[in-house]
């Protein structure tokens, strides 16, 4: 028989997930976001130029359209910047924490014992900057899964290894 204790626990003495210092995403991830945004901007700019060239009626509003477009782009840029800056993750002894969100800041925690499988993705641009995206799945479906982009590929591999080891320890 194992040693059995059943002492009352003080909730305030438990590890506090909200006070764990989080690792921010790699600064290089911002470059990828900028590249993606640049592509988006290029496509929309070409679209607007075509619209202005071939539609005589809208031409009067050229200044207004370009102004609104620029404001929108700057806004998008700033929002993305704030969004990326706010994201962060941490691996604790027994779980993994990811915080994200701009308007609503949500923190999701997955205990190692509940992880079903892990995927490590490398996109075209993220490979250029040696970054990877970790995806961690649970039986809780889409809502209970984590997608953490912008981790240094070496670090991502290490985390994946660590998690895999933890999962196999559980069985």
């Amino acid at each position, binding site marked *: 028989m194992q040693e059995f204790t059943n002492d009352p*626990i003080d909730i305030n003495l*438990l590890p506090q997930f909200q006070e764990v210092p989080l690792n921010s995403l790699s600064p290089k991830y911002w470059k990828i976001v900028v590249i993606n945004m640049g592509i988006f901007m290029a496509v929309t700019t070409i679209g607007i130029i075509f619209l202005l060239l071939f539609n005589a009626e809208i031409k009067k509003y050229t200044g207004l359209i370009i102004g609104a477009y620029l404001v929108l782009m700057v806004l998008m840029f700033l929002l993305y910047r704030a969004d990326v800056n706010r994201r962060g993750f941490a691996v604790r002894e027994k779980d993994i924490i990811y915080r994200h969100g701009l308007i*609503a*800041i949500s*923190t999701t925690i*997955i205990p190692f014992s509940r992880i079903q499988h892990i995927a490590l993705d490398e996109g075209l641009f993220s490979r250029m900057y040696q970054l990877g995206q970790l995806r961690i799945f649970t039986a809780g479906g889409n809502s*209970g*899964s984590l997608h953490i982009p912008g981790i240094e590929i070496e670090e991502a591999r290490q985390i994946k290894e660590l998690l895999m080891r933890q999962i196999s320890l559980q069985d």
Partner: protein
Amino acid sequence: MDQDFSKPQKQSATGVIIMFANNLQKVIRAVALPLIFIVLKSKGNYGIEFILGISFLFLLLLAIYAWFSYQQFSFFLDEDKQEFVINEGIFNKSTLTIQLNKIQQVNINQSLLQQIIGVYSLDIDTAGSEKKEASIKAIDHLTATRLKQRLLSERDPITTTVAVATPKPMLKLSNATLLKVGITSNYGASILLLMGFIFGLIQFFKDYTALFEVETTEIYAELSQGFGFISICFFIGFALIVVLGTNIIRTFIRYFQFQIIRQKGALAISSGLLTRKNTLLTPKKVQLSAYSQNYFQKKLGISNMKVKQAAYGTADEEESKKSHIEIPGCNEPERQDILKMIYDQIPQKGKALIPNYRFLFLQIMLKIVGPSVLSCFFAFAVYQPLQPYLALLIPYAILVLILLYFEYKHHRLYANQGFIIKKSGIWDITEEIIEIHKIQAITSKQYFWHKKADVGHLLLHTAAGVIHFKYGNYSQINNLVNYWLYQLERTKKDWI
């Protein structure tokens, strides 16, 4: 007395009939429409004898086919490898192998035809996303129950002895209870059904008048003349009777002779009027249980229970619906019995978390202020004739306010050492119960403008859905999250 399943064996001899009927049904479904088309097109060029002859030949072929597929279908239990194997196929032979520990549910069902012949079908559901479901279409009841018990007793195949005498059911619904359930539940679904029916009728009416070029304006004029107060009352009364009637009929078809039998640490549930459906509920696979009760049901002392087993990871909708088991119309002691069976104890409500008044604020903006402003704007700036109807906004606002207030009043989260109970609902008040170790992931969420007010949201992800508690005290929520994580990471209990 023990039956040997280790040698390949065939289905009941009457299985030929089932196979024949199944194939016939499939073929008729596939060719019926084109066939009718061809027959109509040919305009009786062929005599009746010719058609009969072709049909007879066709049936004969099907019968031969059914005979051979019956001959080729066999199943056996491989004790060494712990596998259940089904061989089938005439031209394309296939072998289906199921590992016993992967089996999640074994259901014994009976369709109308099977009831006539006196055989049962045995369906095996497996866990995991890969679709690999096995079904034996014709098997007698004794063999079926024995096989079922053998399949489910994966760990100790030798010591299993089967009690043939069926034990006394722990819950059995009488027709009176079913009537109560039918009267008091599922208004929404029945009203939808009724609306569909009425729209169908209107469409039919339109088609009819168009077809026979009836002067529609006359009919509409007469309709609106005769549409006095009395006829509206009559119509509402009629609709009420139809809704209640469909409700009762639906309830009886689904839950006729509903009973639960305790069976070696599991619950065997069977019900149904036209086809008897059998499902097996294994307590440790239960992810979430819920029970709901509305005002009438409270007065009658009945409630509807729902038990959800792991649903994600199974590929399609159909599958995940099957893993939800509904137990209608159980009274308080029966409910406690079932809960005790699933959880070994009756989950007690811990301290309640009460949502902040901000819970109401956004809803009022979205559902009262927003629509009111929009319709006022519309009535004054766009379409003036609408103005006299603006007064309707007042009863609308009062009604929605009352509903929102009830929603707020019922939105509660109770947590204690082992259980989390979430209460919610406006009319049907639902309490969802989960055990802490069934949680898969936890999210706590806060809008940035709620930081000062210390208000936040909580999402508990389980394998049977998400439990969402809104506008709670954020530090309280975080404390609970820490506590649950502590419990989750300390426990040796697995979630499935």
